[in-house]
């Protein structure tokens, strides 16, 4: 991963893509120095700022989150405060509240904290999944199709599946993880790195396996964005079976759609 210098406003920083770890990173240290201001502190802070200033800062936060979300990169609160919020950190909760409201009302997106320890945010789609794809060519569409197959197989196997099952399934669909694919390129990298970084999948080592084996699970973004009921319907069509015949998965799909959103 190459480190590149970027400049945000007057500050420059190197883009480090570190996985969140339990050992203290620079961002952790800065985040721990950021204590969430109290309501009275926020109110006092707002008194010293014009509405235009708060609106401007909120716009910048929205822009920043949208840009990161285009690449499906989760955003850490520490980065957001350091690079965008800056001097407005004392009214941070108010800015985030307004940003969340704008995301819902204008963009149909939901701002969700997926990691309460490191305070990491993602934007998920708040709109109902359409029954048919849009008439516009989206570059991401084929990848999502591939992802759906993986999510489907994983779900049908009870939520966890050994990687070999996935590689074999994909091979039957003529997507060979060992070869460079015409559409997807390096399939293994796409599935085990890109989809994982985007929080669609989890790719976890199975301990004590030699050679090293992994298993796939649904990631947090998939849990929130993808309807299990829709996956079940999709699998039903694929196997020409009534989704209700898979009673356990059907029950799980029913309970998850009531808890989603």
């Amino acid at each position: 991963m190459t480190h590149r210098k970027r400049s945000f406003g007057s500050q420059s920083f190197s883009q480090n893509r570190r996985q969140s770890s339990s050992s203290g990173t620079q961002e952790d240290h800065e985040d721990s120095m950021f204590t969430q201001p109290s309501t009275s502190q926020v109110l006092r802070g707002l008194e010293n700022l014009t509405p235009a200033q708060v609106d401007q800062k909120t716009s910048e936060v929205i822009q920043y989150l949208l840009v990161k979300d285009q690449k499906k990169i989760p955003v850490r609160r520490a980065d957001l405060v350091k690079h965008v919020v800056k001097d407005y950190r004392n009214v941070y909760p108010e800015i985030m509240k307004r940003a969340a409201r704008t995301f819902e009302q204008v963009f149909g997106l939901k701002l969700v904290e997926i990691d309460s320890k490191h305070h990491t945010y993602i934007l998920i789609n708040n709109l109902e999944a359409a029954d048919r794809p849009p008439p516009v060519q989206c570059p991401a569409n084929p990848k999502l199709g591939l992802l759906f197959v993986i999510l489907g197989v994983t779900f049908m196997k009870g939520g966890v599946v050994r990687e070999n099952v996935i590689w074999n399934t994909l091979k039957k669909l003529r997507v060979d993880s060992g070869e460079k694919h015409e559409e997807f390129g390096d399939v293994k990298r796409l599935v085990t790195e890109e989809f994982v970084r985007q929080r669609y999948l989890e790719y976890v080592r199975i301990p004590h396996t030699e050679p090293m084996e992994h298993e796939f699970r649904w990631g947090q973004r998939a849990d929130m964005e993808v309807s299990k009921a829709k996956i079940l319907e999709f699998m039903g069509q694929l196997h020409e079976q009534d989704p209700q015949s898979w009673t356990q998965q059907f029950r799980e799909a029913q309970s998850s759609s009531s808890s989603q959103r």
Partner: protein
Amino acid sequence: MARQMGDSHRRFLQTMMINGITDEHSVKALYQYCCEVNKTPHVPDKLDEFIDTINSKLQAMFMQIRKGMSEVDGHQYYVLVNMAETNITRMSSDYADNELELFRKIVDLTVCSENGKVSSTDILNITDTMTTKKLKKSETEHLLSRLVQDKWLCEERGEYTLSARCIIEMEPYIRTMYQDHLKVCHICHSLAFQCQICENPTCGIKIHNPCVARYFKRRTEPRCPSCDDFWPHEIPEVR
């Protein structure tokens, strides 16, 4: 007075955000799709109003959905543009500072060029004038291919032009920066880079290639709409 945004607007906006630039035909189909999915009535003539509703809410975030013509095929395209002056935009997060400096220099070369085209040699030469960290030849070539892939520039036979997306997105910036050097199409009044020029030295008006095609369609003797001199250039076909 703009209406409130509904899910059909939001769905439309989400798709526009993903694509960066969308042709008019797809936009109309997308508008219909978003209304149908949301079970709201679809009125084909009201696309502009539909987009105005979205734009009224985007204004606070310095974003707008803008429409413009491609200098190459003459068709209309829609772009979700970012008008903020800050560095928190998509382009500045995809490219390093020195890459952005070179990009601005390429825009500069294009604006000052005769035909809106800049050769790769010219671009490589201009890296010498960079004030941020100079890009090496290989880095420049890699940057150019990324700029083409991200649809900021177009490339043909080693010559680079500004893409429709680039022109639509950067029009305000270009108009402000280059007030004196600006070429505007005599027919459609948009910025003109790839265009034909009247050879009359006292006239010199510019017309986009697609605008030439439409304006002079089926005329046996093409004449300059401004000075009436014979229009000497080859009239392209309407695409």
